[in-house]
C-alpha cells in the first residue's frame, strides 16, 4: 500500500509538463552521449548540472537520471552501425549487432535493442519500486559501524571487480580516499593538505575530477588512437523485426532484465558485468551457440536488456543507502547533495517527491526512449559520420564550458584538465580510474563513519565484529580481499579488459 501511494505521488510529480520536459531533455541528451564515443553520461550529467540550480531538486534529478539510463539506449546504435561501443556497456552488442548490420539487418537489430531496453528497463524500474522501500527501512537501523562496513565492502568490491586487477584497483581506491581527505576535515574543521590555498578549503571538486578522468581522458585517448569508423549505412533493412526475431528475443530479454537488475545492485562496473554475463548465459542456453558472433539476435537482445535493467538496479543502493556503485551514480549523488538532498534511508520520508518522482519518471522516460529512438536513428548516424578530428575538439569545448559553469571557476577547468591528463596516463598504464572516483565521493562519509564507530567502540576495532550486520559486512570484506590478493597483484584482467 505504501508503495502504491508512493508511486502515485511519484507520478503526480513526474507528469507535470515541466518535469515531462526535463525527462525528455534528459533521455535525449543521454541517448546522444551514448551514441558519441568520448562523451559519456558522467561528463554530460556534470555539464548539465549547473543548468539545474534554478529548478527544483526533483526536476533536476529527473533530468540527470534520464541522462544516465538514456545513455544505455544510445550506446547500442554505434555498436550496431559502426562496431564502436558508445559506452562500455554496449561492447557485447557489437559482437552480433554489427554482424547483423553487415547482413543488411541493422533495422531489426536496432529495433530489438530498443524493445529489449524498454522491456527490461521497465522491469528494472518495477523491481526498483518494490525493492527500495524495504531496503530503506532496513538501512535506517544502521549505525556508524554498519555504515563503515557497508562502505568498505562497496570499495573492495569495486576494486575486486575492476578490469585493472586487484592491486592496481586498490591503489586507485586509496588515491580516491586520500583526495577525499583534502580540505577541511569533517569533524573538527582542521585544514588538511590545503597548502594555504583557499580554493582547496572545500576539498577537491568531485565533478571536475570525474569529468577530467572520464571525459577529457577519453578524448585524449581517442586522439591518440586516431579513431577510424566504418559505418554500415547502406541499408538499415526493415526496421521491424520478424515474428521469429521477436520469439527468439523474448527469453533473452526477460533473462537479461532479471540478471541485469541483480548485477546492478553490486558496486563496481556492474552494468558492464551484466552485459557480459547475459551474453555468456544466452550462448550457453542456445541450441546453436556457434551462431553467436555471426549475427544472432539473442546476442543483441540479452546484453541490451541487461544494461538497462542494471542501470535501474544501480539506483537502489544510491537512493536507499546513499552509496554510489558506479561513476554515473556517484555524480548523481553529488548532484543530489548540491541540491540539498541527502540520498539514503531517510530520502523516502524526507523528500518523497524526489524519491518517488525519479522512479515514476523512469517509467515515462523508458517509454519516451522507445518512441523516440527508432525514428532518430538517421540523425544519430549523421552525427556518427562527423569525423573524429572535428568531433573531439567539440567534446572538449563542451567539457570546458561545463567545468567552468560548475562554480564559474578557472580552477575547476585546471583540475579537470589535470585529471584528464592523469586519466589518460593511467589508462595507458592499464589502471582503471573507476575505484578512484567512487572512493573520492565516498571518502568523507567513510571517514566520518569510521571515526564515529571507533569513538563508539572506545578505540577498539572489535566494535565492527560485535554487531551482527557489521560483522557480516566485515566477513564479506575479508573474503573479497582474500580473493583480490589471490589474484596476481596488479595484473590486469585481460578477459574483462577485452570485454570493455
Amino acid at each position, binding site marked *: 500500500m505504501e508503495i502504491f501511494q508512493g508511486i502515485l505521488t511519484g507520478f503526480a510529480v513526474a507528469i507535470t509538463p515541466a518535469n515531462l520536459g526535463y525527462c525528455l531533455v534528459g533521455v535525449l541528451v543521454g541517448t546522444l552521449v551514448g551514441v558519441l564515443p568520448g562523451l559519456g553520461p558522467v561528463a554530460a550529467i556534470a555539464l548539465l548540472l549547473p543548468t539545474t540550480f534554478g529548478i527544483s531538486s526533483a526536476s533536476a534529478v529527473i533530468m540527470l537520471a534520464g541522462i544516465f539510463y538514456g545513455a544505455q539506449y544510445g550506446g547500442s546504435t554505434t555498436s550496431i552501425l559502426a562496431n564502436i561501443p558508445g559506452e562500455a556497456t554496449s561492447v557485447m552488442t557489437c559482437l552480433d549487432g554489427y554482424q547483423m548490420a553487415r547482413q543488411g539487418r541493422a533495422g531489426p537489430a536496432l529495433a530489438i535493442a530498443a524493445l529489449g531496453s524498454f522491456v527490461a528497463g521497465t522491469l528494472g524500474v518495477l523491481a526498483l519500486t518494490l525493492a527500495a522501500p524495504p531496503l530503506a527501512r532496513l538501512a535506517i537501523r544502521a549505525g556508524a559501524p554498519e555504515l563503515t562496513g557497508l562502505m568498505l565492502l562497496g570499495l573492495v568490491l569495486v576494486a575486486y571487480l575492476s578490469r585493472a586487477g586487484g592491486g592496481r584497483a586498490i591503489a586507485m581506491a586509496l588515491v580516491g580516499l586520500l583526495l577525499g581527505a583534502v580540505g577541511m576535515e569533517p569533524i573538527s574543521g582542521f585544514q588538511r593538505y590545503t597548502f594555504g590555498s583557499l580554493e582547496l578549503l572545500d576539498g577537491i571538486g568531485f565533478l571536475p575530477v570525474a569529468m577530467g578522468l572520464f571525459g577529457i581522458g577519453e578524448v585524449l585517448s581517442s586522439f591518440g588512437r586516431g579513431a577510424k569508423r566504418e559505418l554500415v549505412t547502406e541499408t538499415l533493412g526493415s526496421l521491424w523485426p520478424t515474428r521469429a526475431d521477436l520469439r527468439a528475443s523474448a527469453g533473452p530479454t526477460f533473462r537479461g532484465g532479471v540478471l541485469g537488475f541483480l548485477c546492478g545492485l553490486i558496486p563496481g562496473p556492474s552494468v558492464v558485468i551484466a552485459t557480459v554475463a547475459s551474453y555468456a548465459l544466452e550462448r550457453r542456453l542456445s541450441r546453436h551457440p556457434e551462431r553467436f558472433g555471426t549475427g544472432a539476435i539473442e546476442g543483441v537482445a540479452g546484453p541490451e536488456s541487461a544494461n538497462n535493467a542494471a542501470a535501474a538496479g544501480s539506483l537502489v543502493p544510491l537512493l536507499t543507502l546513499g552509496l554510489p556503485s558506479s561513476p554515473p551514480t556517484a555524480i548523481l549523488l553529488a548532484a543530489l547533495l548540491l541540491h540539498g538532498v541527502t540520498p539514503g534511508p531517510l530520502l523516502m520520508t524526507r523528500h518523497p517527491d524526489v524519491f518517488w518522482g525519479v522512479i515514476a519518471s523512469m517509467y515515462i522516460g523508458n517509454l519516451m526512449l522507445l518512441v523516440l529512438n527508432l525514428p532518430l536513428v538517421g540523425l544519430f548516424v549523421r552525427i556518427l559520420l562527423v569525423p573524429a578530428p572535428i568531433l573531439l575538439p567539440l567534446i572538449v569545448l563542451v567539457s570546458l564550458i561545463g567545468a567552468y559553469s560548475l562554480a*564559474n571557476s*578557472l580552477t575547476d577547468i585546471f583540475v579537470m584538465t589535470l585529471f584528464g591528463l592523469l586519466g589518460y596516463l593511467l589508462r595507458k598504464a592499464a589502471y582503471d580510474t573507476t575505484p578512484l572516483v567512487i572512493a573520492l565521493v565516498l571518502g568523507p562519509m567513510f571517514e566520518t563513519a569510521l571515526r564515529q564507530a571507533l569513538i563508539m567502540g572506545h578505540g577498539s576495532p572489535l566494535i565492527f565484529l560485535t554487531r551482527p550486520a557489521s560483522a557480516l559486512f566485515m566477513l564479506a570484506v575479508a573474503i573479497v580481499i582474500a580473493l583480490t590478493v589471490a589474484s596476481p597483484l596488479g595484473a590486469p584482467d585481460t578477459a574483462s579488459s577485452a570485454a570493455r
Partner: protein
Amino acid sequence: MLGRLVPGALLLLGTGASVGAALMPFGSPSQPGPGFYPFIVGIALALVALGLLATERQSRRGAPTEFLDPLPLAIAAALLVYPPVLGWLGFGVSTGLLLLGLFLLGEPGRPGRAVGLAILSTLIAGLLFGRLLQAPLPKGPWGF
C-alpha cells in the same frame, strides 16, 4: 616505463600523505584526530605501491611508445594553458585559439577548415551557453 612510473608516483604520494598526516593532530584510536585517517590511508597506499613496483619489476611490463605519443600530450598541454589565458583574453579569443589548435592538430593539412570551424564553434558555444543558458563566460578586455 609508464608501468614503473605510476607505482613510483603512488609510493611518493602515499609516503608524502602519511608524513603530512603525521604532522597533524593525530588523536588516539578512541578519539581519532584529523591526521588519523589520512595517515592510515597513506601508509596503505605506500604499501600497495611497493607491491605494484615489485610486481612490475618482475613482469617488466611497460608501454614506453604509448607514453611518448606526442599528440595527446600536446593537447593536454594546450588545455593546461587554457585557464590562465581564458582569464586574461576572455572566452571568445582564448576558446577560438584553443579550438583552432585542436582542429589543426587533428587535421594538420586543412588550415582553412580549421579556422572556419574554430570561429563557428566558438560563436555557437558563446551564443548557446553565454546568451541562451546565461553561463557567465569570462570576458576579455574587448568585452567578449
